[in-house]
């Protein structure tokens, strides 16, 4: 023990005062000759134990008090061995990278998480850095902002920023964090530059950290906040929905994929399905060691958008024990096929392939075929989508009916062919066409070239350019667009160029750059324009594997009723684009915890056909996010069709630990070794508190014994 003011220890002599006063008091006691000594001694025997205890307690309290005060004023301290790295003692510029990824939220023991441990360790480092050091503070989660983005000597500010940090549900990205930390340290003029990484050492997030990055950058000190215990985890890593024909027309199947990251198999793990918050099914699942298994819940539901959630029995990491998705159930979706080129030979009919694709097993479309002239008199409101295939010249009545239908929220698919009169279409159907129709174009074959792999139709043909799967129509296709890439297009219509509009997108292009499939919002509805035919006159697309999913997805897309949840799922930290309806003025997104955020679309040009969207990026927590819309008339309604699920990145569930040779502090030759630092542990605060406690104890004992006097 050491003292800052050792001379004040002379005051310890005062500790003898209580004893001296006690002795003086005994010497000054008045002698009395008393007859009832026997009674007195009996009474003394009865209370002597308690009296001695009281006397000793009082003497100790008073002596302790008399000793504690000079001791406290002498400001004692001791030096203890610190568990912090030795480098913390050096004057330095440092950046603290705190791992706030989802895995840091698991439970270690009781309610403590690795993130709590990490924060405590980070706080220790901040507190014990030499006073002239400067430090910045970064978070390791993907896309996170920096709490202290520049090097600062303002220790209270850094401490306050550190205290305010909460763990996220995002994936870790140490490569980005280390790059940014390195960048921050380049502005420092100090020789000693360090990056402290406080993490649970989960391998996830370190994949992109390259040895070259480590070799070139500042020294890195890794502090382990994992608590040392192995982590055994089970997680819901996938969730989807599909029709369940075996359950009838109302049947859906919710399929959950469960991963077991432990070395031991799991038997009878409880798993629960909730629909719109209500538990509808519970089952059990066996998981192989280190493997995965799927659980299929079959359930009957009515149509519309539903929120599905699968929950497994909780383990130490509760965040990945549940997963949500939106299930849209399209039941009895009615589709009208307008046959612009009917034939007596069934296979040569314009809508033969369309109808075959829509009637394929399990698709559950109610397909109706009509002729163009019927459109003017038919009520289109009951159809989810209308396909106009190779219709020559829509009459005014047809155009009016179709326009009304689309602007009222209907979906229209237009395909062309040799019967289509482009001028007539551009005139009568201008309101719904995404782009005016242009000239017919035939594909030109390169001289002497022969279509590769084709033996049936040797006409020159165009192919599709690589597809962009970001569009919902194509999300279900493989990355290279298998099924569509092989399709050949012999003839197609060019489209007249128009300025870009927010609601219009080219979904597919030919290799020559011409649009193949154009998507546009019209009023509250949607129009898809295919610039070729849906029979085999102009293309062999109808006999390609991609035709069936393309047509079915197009029907669902136009009816705003996809069965899949792919487009309604965002990974934590991702962004969600929400399309406003024609009456929607503002959008409110309600998070799983009940917080909400209002989003207003940017001002538009006034064009009725302009598509309005808002972008929501506060997807911080996994769960279902509800969407509400403020209408033009002031009402606010739920938009279940726009609700979306935010899911955890499955890689955060993987407890695999970063290999020692991958650790940036061990991969480098110069580590953070050296003798462990010692830190000063000030004792006078405790002594002051003890003195106050002794005063209270002495007062209590004095009052109690003076008043009570050993009453029995």
């Amino acid at each position, binding site marked *: 023990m050491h003292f800052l003011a050792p001379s004040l220890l002379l005051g310890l002599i005062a500790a003898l005062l209580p004893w001296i006063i006690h002795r003086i008091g005994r010497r000054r*006691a008045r*002698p009395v000759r008393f*007859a*009832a000594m026997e009674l007195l001694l009996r009474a*003394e025997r009865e209370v002597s134990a308690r009296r001695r205890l009281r006397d000793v307690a009082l003497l100790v309290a008073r002596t302790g008090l008399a000793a504690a005060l000079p001791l406290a004023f002498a400001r004692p301290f001791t030096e203890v061995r610190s568990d912090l790295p030795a480098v913390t003692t050096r004057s330095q510029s440092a950046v603290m990278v705190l791992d706030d990824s989802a895995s840091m939220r698991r439970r270690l023991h009781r309610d403590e998480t690795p993130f709590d441990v990490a924060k405590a360790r980070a706080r220790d480092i901040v507190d014990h850095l030499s006073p002239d050091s400067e430090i910045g503070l970064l978070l390791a989660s993907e896309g996170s902002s920096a709490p202290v983005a520049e090097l600062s000597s303002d220790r209270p500010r850094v401490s306050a920023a550190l205290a305010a940090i909460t763990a996220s549900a995002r994936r870790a990205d140490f490569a980005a964090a280390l790059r940014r930390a390195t960048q921050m340290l380049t502005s420092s003029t100090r020789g000693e530059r360090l990056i402290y990484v406080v993490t649970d050492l989960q391998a996830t997030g370190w994949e992109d950290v390259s040895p070259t990055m480590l070799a070139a950058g500042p020294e890195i000190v890794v502090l382990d906040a994992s608590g040392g215990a192995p982590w055994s985890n089970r997680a819901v890593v996938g969730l989807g929905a599909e029709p369940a024909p075996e359950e009838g027309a109302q049947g859906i199947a919710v399929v959950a994929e469960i991963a077991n990251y432990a070395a031991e198999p799991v038997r009878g793990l409880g798993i629960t399905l909730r629909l719109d918050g209500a538990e509808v099914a519970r089952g059990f699942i066996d998981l192989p060691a280190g493997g995965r298994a799927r659980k299929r819940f079959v359930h009957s539901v009515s149509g519309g958008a539903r929120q599905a959630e699968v929950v497994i029995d909780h383990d130490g990491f509760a965040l990945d024990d549940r997963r949500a998705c939106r299930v849209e159930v399209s039941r009895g979706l009615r589709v009208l096929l307008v046959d612009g080129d009917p034939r007596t030979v069934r296979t040569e009919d314009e809508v033969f392939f369309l109808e075959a694709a829509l009637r394929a097993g399990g698709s559950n479309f109610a397909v109706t075929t009509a002729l163009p002239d019927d459109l003017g008199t038919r009520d289109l409101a009951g159809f989810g989508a209308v396909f106009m295939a190779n219709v020559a010249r829509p009459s005014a009545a047809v155009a009016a009916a179709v326009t009304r239908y689309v602007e009222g929220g209907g979906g229209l698919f237009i395909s062309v062919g040799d019967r289509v009169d482009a001028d007539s279409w551009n005139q009568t159907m201008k309101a719904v066409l995404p782009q005016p129709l242009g000239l017919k174009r035939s594909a030109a074959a390169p001289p002497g070239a022969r279509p590769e792999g084709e033996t049936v139709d040797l006409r020159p043909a165009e192919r599709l350019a690589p597809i962009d799967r970001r569009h919902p129509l194509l999300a279900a296709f493989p990355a290279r667009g298998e099924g569509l890439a092989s399709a050949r297009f012999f003839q197609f219509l060019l489209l007249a160029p128009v300025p870009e509009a927010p609601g219009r997108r080219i979904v597919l292009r030919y290799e020559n750059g011409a649009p193949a499939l154009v998507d546009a919002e019209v009023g509250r509805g949607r129009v898809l324009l295919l610039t070729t035919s849906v029979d085999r006159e102009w293309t062999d697309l109808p006999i390609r594997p991609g035709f069936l999913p393309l047509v079915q997805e197009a029907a669902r897309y136009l009816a705003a009723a996809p069965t899949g949840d792919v487009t309604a799922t965002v990974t934590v930290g991702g962004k969600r684009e929400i399309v406003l309806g024609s009456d929607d003025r503002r959008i409110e997104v309600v998070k799983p915890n009940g917080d909400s955020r209002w989003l207003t679309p940017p001002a538009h040009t006034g064009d009725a056909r302009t598509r309005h969207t808002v972008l929501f990026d506060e997807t911080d927590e996994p769960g279902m996010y509800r969407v509400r819309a403020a209408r033009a008339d002031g009402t606010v309604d739920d938009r279940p069709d726009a609700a979306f699920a935010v899911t955890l990145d499955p890689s955060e569930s993987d407890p695999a630990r970063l290999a020692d040779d991958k650790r940036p502090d061990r991969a480098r030759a110069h580590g953070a070794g050296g003798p462990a630092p010692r830190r000063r542990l000030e004792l006078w605060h405790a002594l002051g508190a003890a003195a106050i406690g002794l005063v209270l104890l002495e007062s209590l004992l004095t009052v109690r014994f003076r008043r009570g006097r050993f009453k029995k």
Partner: protein
Amino acid sequence: MDAKPEARSTAGKPLALDPTDIARLGSMSVRARVIVEGAFAGMHQNPHAGSSIEFSEHKEYAPGDDIRRIDWKAVGRRDRYYIKRFEDETEMRTFLLVDSSASMGYGRKGVTKLAYASYLAAALAYLLAQQGDPAGLVLFDEKTRQYLPPRTRGGHIRDLLVALEAAYPAGRTEPARALAEIGEIADRRSLIVVFSDLLDAPAELADRLRQVRSRGNDVVLFHLLDPDEVELPYDDVTDFEGMEPEDARRLLVDPRDLAASFRRESAALRERWRQTCLESRVEYRFATTEEPPADVLRAFLFARQKARR
């Protein structure tokens, strides 16, 4: 003689002088007379008109009673038949045993226990002399220090009062031996009155009381304590030491710590002797030295009068 102190009057009670007031009176004979007068003032009896501590009385005739014992004078006066109860006409010898050990010398504020015992003994002796009953005196500590046998001659009461006046506290408390000696001397039906603080009294005393009582003697035990020996009302740290010879016991203590326990021990002592006397058919009277002796005497006489009816 000192100026006559003012008599103290309590509500509904006769005038009675405090022990300290009694002490101021000139001689033991005056003190005895004042105490006796004070005691009888409350009993509405004149101590000078032949009253006795042994009362005779009448009982209304009932079938079966001996008609030879009908008091015809009473029949003439009251027009009712009364049986004259037997009145002992024989002389009753009384032995007054006063503990004069060193412990009886304790008295912090008022009179000592020995003085108080002397006042009571003197008053009783005076009363007995008035009735013509012989009274003897024994002053004892661990042995009999002075013995005056019961007599009725003229100067005896004076000798007895002088002996009481001259008594001083010394020696150890040993009432058993004195009581045994008197038990040997006393005739049947003697009245033996013991005044003692009973502090440090050996257990043998209980056997001796029982023995003396079994011989037909009437035994009264006056247990006298100083108020300090009941309450321990000391305030400061005190170095207590024993009073009797060879008592080397000392205790340095804050008496406030012991007061409650001391009160319990003191009460237990009194209760123990009260029970012992009850079992031995010995009359037990307790008094502190701050009570007016006349009150104590009156209570004693009244109780005996009541008991003999």
